[in-house]
């Protein structure tokens, strides 16, 4: 008879196993899942301490904190997944203040029955994204809810960073005469996601543009420390972001349709679906507003960075008590680019 191995714990079955309620109960099963998955993948000095919190010093300066919940469906889409999206999204929110992102936290709400293979895929994707961004996930939490109460997994990430001295970026700083730039092609993420959704099955080469933008922001600030506004046009697209900035700053905005970078396939997909690319989500692009004198230098800095190669000047800020965003169409007419009404759903007519 062979001796029983001491302290043998059967490893988590990532191939065929599923999340069950014991994984959220605080007991051994949960500790094991955390250990074999989250700690293993995210591995860093803070997590190794195994505390309920992470302790760190911050450099002097103004701190920035941002948080985002990710409830996207489908969880996996061309070019990314909810894991890397949740890292990029919060890193970007911090970066849009001009801050250097320092640390992330991640909390998971797992649905009972969710395949552990998928969970591992997502967590590994997060780990890679955090590694590539140089922003560690230093603390986290896991809960499990009953089947039907979550869409597989919900992930909330929070990030902190510090703003360098001399940088004052805020949505209310746009002034008449300022120039508006975007860092690249619009609509890629939203269309990539919609291509996966049940009803809309077309084969395209469109991938999500999900990316961490803090490197690009740093390069931009090097060239133009006095940038007025930065924002990433996620839900609701460019149109929503411009309307937000216009209202916050109490100004009007003019843009030119012909100047907006748009991939032909994204345009074609939007035609097919009756979507306006101006309202489609982006996850790896930013909008910048700067003084006119700085525009050329800023554009050059953006184009010099891998994530800004298709950057373009798309318009300018003007005086307008109504805070309208107006667009000169490719056809030569003018139209207002209004706030999104409700959720953007594909049209038939």
């Amino acid at each position, binding site marked *: 008879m062979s001796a029983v191995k001491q302290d043998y714990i059967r490893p988590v079955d990532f191939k065929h196993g599923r999340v069950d309620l014991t994984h959220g109960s605080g007991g051994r099963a949960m500790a094991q899942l955390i250990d074999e998955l989250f700690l293993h993948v995210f591995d860093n000095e803070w997590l190794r301490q195994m505390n309920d919190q992470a302790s760190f010093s911050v450099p002097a300066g103004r701190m920035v904190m941002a948080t985002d919940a990710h409830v996207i469906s489908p969880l996996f889409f061309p070019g990314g997944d909810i894991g890397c999206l949740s890292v990029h999204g919060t890193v970007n929110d911090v970066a849009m203040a001009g801050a250097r992102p320092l640390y992330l936290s991640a909390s998971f709400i797992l649905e009972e029955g969710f395949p552990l293979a998928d969970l591992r895929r997502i967590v590994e994707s997060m780990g890679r994204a955090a590694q590539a961004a140089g922003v560690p996930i230093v603390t986290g939490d896991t809960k499990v809810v009953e089947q039907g109460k979550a869409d597989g997994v919900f992930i909330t990430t929070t990030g902190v960073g510090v703003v360098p001295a001399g940088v004052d970026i805020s949505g209310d700083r746009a002034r008449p005469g300022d120039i508006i730039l975007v860092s690249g092609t619009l609509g890629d993420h939203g269309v990539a996601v919609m291509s996966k959704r049940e009803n809309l*099955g077309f084969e*395209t080469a469109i991938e999500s543009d999900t990316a961490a933008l803090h490197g690009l922001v740093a390069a931009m600030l090097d060239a133009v420390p006095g940038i007025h506004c930065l924002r990433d046009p996620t839900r609701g697209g460019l149109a929503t972001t411009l309307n937000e900035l216009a209202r916050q700053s109490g100004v009007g905005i003019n843009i030119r349709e012909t100047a907006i970078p748009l991939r032909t396939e994204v345009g074609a997909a939007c*035609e097919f679906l009756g979507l306006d690319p101006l309202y489609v989500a982006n996850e790896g692009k930013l909008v910048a507003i700067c003084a006119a004198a700085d525009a050329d230098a800023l554009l050059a800095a953006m184009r010099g960075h891998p994530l800004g190669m298709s950057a373009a000047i798309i318009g300018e800020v003007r005086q307008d008590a109504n805070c309208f965003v107006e667009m000169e169409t490719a056809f030569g007419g003018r139209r207002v680019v209004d706030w999104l009404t409700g959720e953007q759903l594909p049209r038939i007519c």
Partner: protein
Amino acid sequence: MCLAIPARVIELLDDSGALVDIGGVRKEISLGLVDGVGVGDYVIVHVGYALARLDEEEAARTLALFAEMSALETAEAGHAD
């Protein structure tokens, strides 16, 4: 009427289906409402169905009309009848 877009047929499928291409985007649609459509033809697609074959000769004629007009001087137009 609305939201119909010209697409090029790149492959015929079973059950009156077809794979079409629009600017690099591909989708499966139905040819159940049209007859005599072949690969390479353009069709007008609405809610997943081809409603009509696009007559490329007529399209060319329409575009030629526009092009011809763009070569005209403004003054020549006068009060049209």
